[in-house]
């Protein structure tokens, strides 16, 4: 080629490229870009807020209002009955509650030597003596104008550890509520 041929080709370039170069405005583009980022941030905040609201309504943020006790069953009972104080709870009663030996053995074996146990400072000796699983079945009725939770029976496992000094048991974790039982 020579530059003349290139020039001829450039003369045939679609108008949109010429218009783009004519209307290019860096400040406008920056504003547009900032606007896009702002919209994206707002959308992310909205989604996170919605997730947070849903989680709150489902009770996922609810801490157990437990009263640590020397008896693990009493600690769990206090936690369940503490739910009665929630504004959306109309009625609550504990139907059955017991230490589940099989589940305790299973979870102890699972935690033994695990990374989680290491992170939490649980030695095998500690788990052997100071870890327990309590199973509970309880009935609840909720104000459905305030919560999505269903009425009925719930079964749940609670994992507790014992403070070696005070001897009190504290809930450190629990399974998701099983509401399929009658």
């Amino acid at each position, binding site marked *: 080629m020579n530059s003349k041929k290139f020039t001829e080709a450039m003369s045939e*370039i679609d108008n949109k490229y010429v218009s783009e170069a*004519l209307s290019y405005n*860096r400040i406008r583009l920056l504003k547009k870009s900032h606007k896009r980022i702002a919209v994206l941030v707002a959308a992310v905040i909205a989604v996170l807020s919605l997730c947070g609201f849903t989680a709150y309504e489902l009770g996922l943020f609810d801490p157990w209002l437990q009263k640590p006790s020397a008896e693990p069953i009493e600690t769990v009972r206090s936690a369940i009955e503490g739910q009665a104080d929630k504004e959306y709870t109309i009625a609550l009663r504990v139907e059955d509650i017991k230490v589940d030996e099989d589940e305790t053995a299973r979870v102890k074996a699972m935690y033994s030597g695990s990374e989680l146990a290491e992170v939490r400072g649980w030695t095998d000796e500690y788990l052997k003596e100071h870890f327990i699983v309590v199973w509970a079945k309880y009935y609840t009725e909720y104000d459905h104008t305030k919560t999505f939770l269903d009425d009925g029976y719930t079964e749940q496992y609670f994992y507790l550890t014992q403070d070696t000094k005070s001897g009190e048991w504290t809930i450190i974790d629990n399974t998701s509520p099983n509401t399929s039982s009658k």
Partner: protein
Amino acid sequence: MIEDEKIVELFFKRSELAIRELDNKYGKVCHRLSYNIVNNRQDAEECVNDAYLGAWNAIPPEKPDPLLTYLCKIVRNISLKMYYRKQAAKRSSTYTIAMEEIEACIAAPSMVETEFDARELARVIESFLDTLTAENRVIFMRRYWFSDSCKDIAGLVGLTEKNITVRLTRIRQKMKKYLIEKGVFI
């Protein structure tokens, strides 16, 4: 400032106000574009006036949208004709410099394998332009269509003149590679 639609309406009414409004609104852009090519105030003035006359003859029946793009194309074509006519004078316009840059990045004529006509070549250049960012595309067009100086482009896009020079070098290298890949040795 009067809207483009109103100016086009004036053309359709065959009102001479159309030319005055066109010049008021876009005269500066047209003069700069033409001057970038012909590198002479008087010649640029002549080219722009010829472009206005061209627009007067074409509108109607044409109804250009956007008007400025249409007008710039006329100004550019007329200015290029003037440039080639007066090339013997060897004026060192920004267009001359821009074309020297392009020639340095393209293959020698002896390497021509496929004879592309201007329209085919334009389509290949368009597809290359589509691979660029909007900013780089504007930089390329301002340099090789409008024949703007690197300083002017720097002011337009908010970069330094040095940045523009480096960007243009990279864009030309990319274009060279792209044209070779497409089998176009221009």
